[in-house]
């Protein structure tokens, strides 16, 4: 009896172990996604935008090359008055995934939804240039005056001041949602509505199934307006932390790294690069400057010399060489985009502890109690960086006490005005203008007491033209000021290493051509043309 039992158990074990993994099924692309990005909905999250490329869509999407936009639901548009009024001609014959025709009504509804104060979407601010936005937000008006439908296939949008680059910079953040479904939902119930776990869109893939904290499955949309996709389906697999994704990339349980919430840790790169089936992009620009954040209202940090001294005190090159494994570059100003920075004329803040001590003495630095130093990132590389920073600052007589806090606590510290110093980063790869909230006069909560009207004017100038050369001039001037005044202690421009499985034809190729991580926006990367190699 015992022997038969043993035999049965071992047979079961063999069956369990020998079953082939079905992750190799052809026609399925598996993409990693971080947790917490689905249920709140597109209007309220800062991640999960892959779903806004494949299921929902906008009028236009930014192209994967980072330059120019791809017309999506808008076939074309014109602005005869240099950026004050935009007339969009919508694509005809487009249907929602449930068969209802897509019309201008959906566009008007969607823009109003984003801007509606009762919906409280943080992305509503992207429409702040639209005429009537302030009235709508204060409650004086019940809709956006500047958005009008003309017939079923044209939408006219009027801005309050001319912004030639408005489409390329602001409109791309807006997804169009179905009026016939969400129009019935009261505005305050939009967030977390059950629509978001069963989305109806116009995109190349149709929402099939969602299992909480496990995956989202989307399948081919045969009648997609740019042509039926070649892939059968995409499965977005949800992970709580990065090391599990790295393991899954190696075992081929997943095909693509997610770039929201961290890339591949530097320590794992050499291991992954040895694998034949992966294309690894170790130096993928993250468009993410990291910096020391100061509360300028705190007397200790009010003197620019103190802030400059800290930069001289830290050997940032050594940190890049050692802790970051050579990845990333020194940052000496706000903008990670090379075109927004001048070729020369900025202080490089090279490692010079002597100069640091001198500046501190000049500024009258006398440290008694340690500085409360707050940080949010808990991955090994950043923790090591902070350890090194602490050590370097201690060597010149500045004592910081690092404290790890979660976002709720950090925002509360800002709100209470108790913030002293910290280590932060800002995802602004898309455009230099995204850095404005960090340095604009009295911008809460991030400018923390910095105010220079010259910088504000330069940012405004940057938005007033669509010509890259004109804009660059404005931002380069701002870069010089910010480099000199050090409102934040500029540290690094980060990289976000990514890896992709070669069996998905089109996936690694498009990311190789993408210049940097484009946070928080849907990116058009021709996903309908991708296939699975046999």
């Amino acid at each position, binding site marked *: 009896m015992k022997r038969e039992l043993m035999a049965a158990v071992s047979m079961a074990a063999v069956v369990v172990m020998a079953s082939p993994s079905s992750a190799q099924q052809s026609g399925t692309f598996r993409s990693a996604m971080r947790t917490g990005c689905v249920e709140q909905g597109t209007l309220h999250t800062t991640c999960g935008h892959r779903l806004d490329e494949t299921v929902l869509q906008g009028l236009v999407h930014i192209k994967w090359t980072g330059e120019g936009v791809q017309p999506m639901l808008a076939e074309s548009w014109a602005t005869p008055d240099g950026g004050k009024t935009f007339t969009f001609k919508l694509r005809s014959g487009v249907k929602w995934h449930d068969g209802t025709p897509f019309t201008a009504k959906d566009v008007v509804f969607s823009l109003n939804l984003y801007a509606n104060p009762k919906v409280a979407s943080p992305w509503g*601010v992207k429409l702040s240039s639209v005429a009537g936005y302030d009235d709508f937000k204060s409650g004086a008006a019940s809709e956006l005056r500047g958005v009008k439908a003309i017939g079923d296939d044209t939408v006219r949008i009027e801005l309050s001041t001319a912004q030639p680059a408005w489409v390329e910079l602001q409109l791309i953040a807006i997804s169009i949602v179905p009026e016939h479904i969400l129009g019935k939902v009261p505005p305050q119930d939009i967030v977390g509505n059950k629509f978001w776990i069963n989305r109806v869109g116009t995109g190349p893939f149709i929402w099939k199934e969602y299992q909480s904290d496990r995956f989202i499955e989307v399948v081919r949309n045969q009648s997609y307006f740019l042509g039926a996709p070649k892939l059968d389906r995409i499965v977005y697999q949800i992970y709580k932390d990065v090391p599990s994704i790295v393991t899954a990339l190696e075992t081929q349980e997943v095909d693509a790294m997610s770039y929201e919430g961290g890339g591949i840790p530097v320590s794992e790169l050499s291991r992954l690069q040895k694998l034949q089936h992966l294309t690894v992009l170790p130096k993928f620009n993250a468009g993410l400057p990291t910096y020391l954040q100061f509360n300028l209202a705190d007397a200790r940090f009010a003197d620019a010399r103190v802030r400059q001294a800290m930069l001289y005190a830290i050997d940032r090159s050594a940190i890049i060489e050692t802790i970051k494994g050579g990845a990333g570059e020194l940052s000496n100003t706000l903008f990670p985009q090379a075109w927004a920075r001048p070729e020369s004329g900025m202080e490089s803040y090279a490692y010079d502890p002597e100069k640091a001590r001198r500046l501190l003495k000049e500024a009258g630095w006398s440290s008694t109690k340690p500085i409360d130093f707050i940080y949010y990132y808990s991955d090994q590389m950043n923790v090591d960086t902070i350890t090194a920073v602490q050590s370097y600052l201690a060597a010149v007589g500045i004592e910081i006490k690092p404290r790890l806090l979660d976002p709720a*606590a950090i925002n509360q510290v800002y709100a209470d005005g108790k913030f002293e110093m910290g280590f932060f980063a800002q995802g602004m790869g898309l455009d230099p203008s995204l850095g404005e909230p960090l340095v604009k006069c009295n911008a809460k909560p991030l400018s923390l007491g910095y105010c220079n009207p010259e910088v504000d004017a330069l940012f405004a100038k940057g938005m007033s033209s669509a010509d890259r050369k004109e804009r660059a001039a404005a931002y380069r001037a701002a870069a010089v000021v910010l480099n000199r005044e050090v409102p934040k202690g500029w540290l690094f421009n980060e990289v976000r290493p990514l890896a992709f499985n070669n069996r998905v034809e089109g996936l690694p190729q498009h990311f190789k051509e993408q210049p940097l991580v484009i946070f928080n926006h849907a990116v058009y990367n021709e996903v309908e043309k991708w296939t699975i190699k046999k």
Partner: protein
Amino acid sequence: MLTYILRKILLGIPVLLGVTVVVFAIASAMPGDAVMAMITAEAPSSEELIAMRRGQLGLDQPIWVQYSTWLWQVLQGNLGRSFITGRPVADMIFERVPYTLELMGVALLVSFALGTALGVVSALRQYHTTDYVLTVAGFAGVAIPDFFLGMLLVYVFSLELRWLPSSGMGTAGDAFSLVDNLRHLVLPAAALALFRTAIFMRYARSSMLEVLTQDYMRTARAKGLSRITIVLRHGLRNALIPLVTVFGLTTPTLFGGSVVVETIFQWPGIGLLFINAVIDRDSPVIMGYVLITALIVMISNILTDLAYGALDPRVSYD
């Protein structure tokens, strides 16, 4: 018997209320609230927006008002909606309970069966090598943290040997298959089971040893019964009694899950949901979880007492 149960339930209610009050108080005292948790640097919100959202969620009320609103809702059978995702708390929790139950249930059953068996063997072979080996193995088993063991298992069986998948509870997107699910279950259950097997083994061993010295065992031997019969019919049954208590004490973890193992193996269980809720200051989810866990603890305590009474003829309740 009935009065005993009723009395326990009645005494349990103030405990339940007390737990919810204390947890609510501590959770509310944490810096920041759900609205603060949702603000990020890339999407800063204006102050009016923040104030309005707070009003919508009722976070601008004094704490005792928030608590009573929640309690009133619960008494009407409604666990409320998540502050962060807006979904009904009951849906969020019960969606994931089966996954936690599966993992913890398998781990507990395997460790109970294996631990008891090994403990009995160890007791029967006292003073022999088997006993020493098992005892040392038992000590070692409780000295390795769960998460560490989990990582080692993933390393050996997923990465190096490629026998088993590294995470998840099934291949995502595919229809549910029992074999696929079991393959995903092996490693996390093993990570959880080692520690518990060692614990059960120790208890089983000492319990069996105590039983072996009892008079009735000697009587059975004197009667000439075969060793197997003695051990199984007389010894084991009595040795199991205290083990039932120990097992009963571990049943609450069936529902609590193990956050650490769920993180490493991306097992979509309730432990993970709960930790995220704490970080996000999602009070309704926190309170829903606490309430359900407390109820389960209370029920399992009563059931354990009853089981103990049923198994041990010396104990009686009235």
